[in-house]
């Protein structure tokens, strides 16, 4: 029995990933994390009931709560075999109007929480006989200059770098670390970054989630340790 934990599972790419993963056979247990109980239950209802689906309420800005949440998940599921960090936050602003609160929240959700989650999960995952997988959802915003998106773009660059470092550091435990950087994708977060954009003209969450699900499937063993850009050209 293998367990996958997904953050940001109440909307966008996280929700699409949770739903699609529940229909596949790689993981029998899926734990979804989010801030709001009603929204988690909504996602849960759309997932395949043949899997053991559970949720945990976690505000990712409350970093000190993460160790206990992971402990609870281990207690209830015995192992964690996959962690997908999808949750994201953005508050686009240029330098001169970027507040400390903006920076703190953006980095808490986009960088510190994923790293603390990885730390806590790896404490157990490193003892798995078959190792495990971690997948971090970054962004193409972390790869090129983004005037006006200072906190968001730099936080995504940080998680791209962290994923790269950890793919080497965790290799000895047979833990594969993936990083995907989607381009424009029709999510609530994208709406904050590009309010005038028609969401029907860009990638949909399901198009990203299907690639995420392929990467974390049992058959995939060659694409870790890279920043994989997911972008729809046509």
């Amino acid at each position, binding site marked *: 029995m293998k367990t996958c934990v997904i953050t940001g599972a109440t909307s966008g790419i996280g929700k699409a990933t949770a739903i699609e993963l529940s229909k596949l056979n790689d993981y029998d247990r899926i734990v979804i994390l989010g801030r709001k109980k009603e929204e988690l239950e909504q996602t849960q209802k759309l997932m395949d009931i043949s899997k053991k689906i559970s949720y945990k309420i976690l505000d990712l800005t409350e970093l000190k709560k993460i160790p206990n949440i992971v402990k609870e998940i281990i207690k209830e599921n015995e192992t964690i075999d996959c962690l997908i960090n999808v949750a994201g936050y953005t508050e686009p602003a240029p330098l001169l109007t970027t507040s400390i609160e903006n920076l703190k929240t953006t980095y808490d959700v986009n960088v510190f929480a994923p790293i603390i989650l990885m730390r806590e999960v790896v*404490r157990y995952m490193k*003892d798995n006989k078959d190792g495990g997988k971690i997948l971090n959802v970054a962004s193409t915003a972390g790869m090129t200059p983004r005037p006006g998106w200072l906190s968001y773009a730099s936080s995504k660059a940080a998680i791209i770098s962290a994923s790269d470092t950890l793919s*080497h*550091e965790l*290799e*000895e435990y047979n833990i594969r670390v993936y990083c995907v950087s989607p381009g424009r994708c029709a999510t609530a977060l994208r709406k904050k970054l590009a309010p005038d954009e028609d969401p029907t003209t860009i990638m949909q969450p399901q198009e990203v989630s299907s690639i995420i699900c392929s990467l974390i499937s049992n058959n995939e063993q060659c694409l870790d340790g890279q920043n994989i850009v997911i972008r729809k050209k046509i």
Partner: protein
Amino acid sequence: MYTLILLAGGKGTRMKNAVPKQFLLLAGKPIIMHTLERVEKIEEIEEIIITCGEEYISLIEEYRKSYMLNKKIIYAKAGKTRQESVYNGLKKVKTDNVIIHEAARPFVNKSEFKRLIECKEKNVIFTYPIQFTVLKIKDDKVNELLDRNELANIQLPHKFETKTLLEAHEKAREEKREFTEDSSLLYYYTKIDIKTIMGSQYNLKITESLDLIIGEIMYKENLIRKDE
């Protein structure tokens, strides 16, 4: 059952580093943690005695907590010499058999520890053939030729009968005689049979800064996911 004495008292003076070598990072992990993580799963080792400076105990404990290591560990004072450190550790050993290892040798994998443990002899050391020529010299002149087929490079870990080794150490202390490692000391005082088993070209002891550079490459080549 075995007690592992892990020698971690070195000051890293040869590396000219303020941090002792056993706490430097190899492949992103403190060198001492490589061994502690590996032996955590070896059931035959029931306890570990780490010889180190008192100032490093809390750091090691913090690392152990972070790496979720739970094997019983006690600490013994690092001596002025390696021999004194081993003696301080030996005095605390409760099992009939002891394994001695150096924290600065992070490339020994689980199967090598197992091979040592499963050897039926009680006193066993790893050795590796010497690939270069060794001569005895005196007063800057060649004094004697040595057949390198009869020579071996000693590698750790070693295993010994605790009582026999402790008695030999006590004799060495009485006579104030120093040895560079324990199989030499044991052999000098007892002439007991000490079995040698083949070690590995990868069993490098981290002593100089260059060893860390070589070590990173060797670690990836030899140890990643081959640690059964």
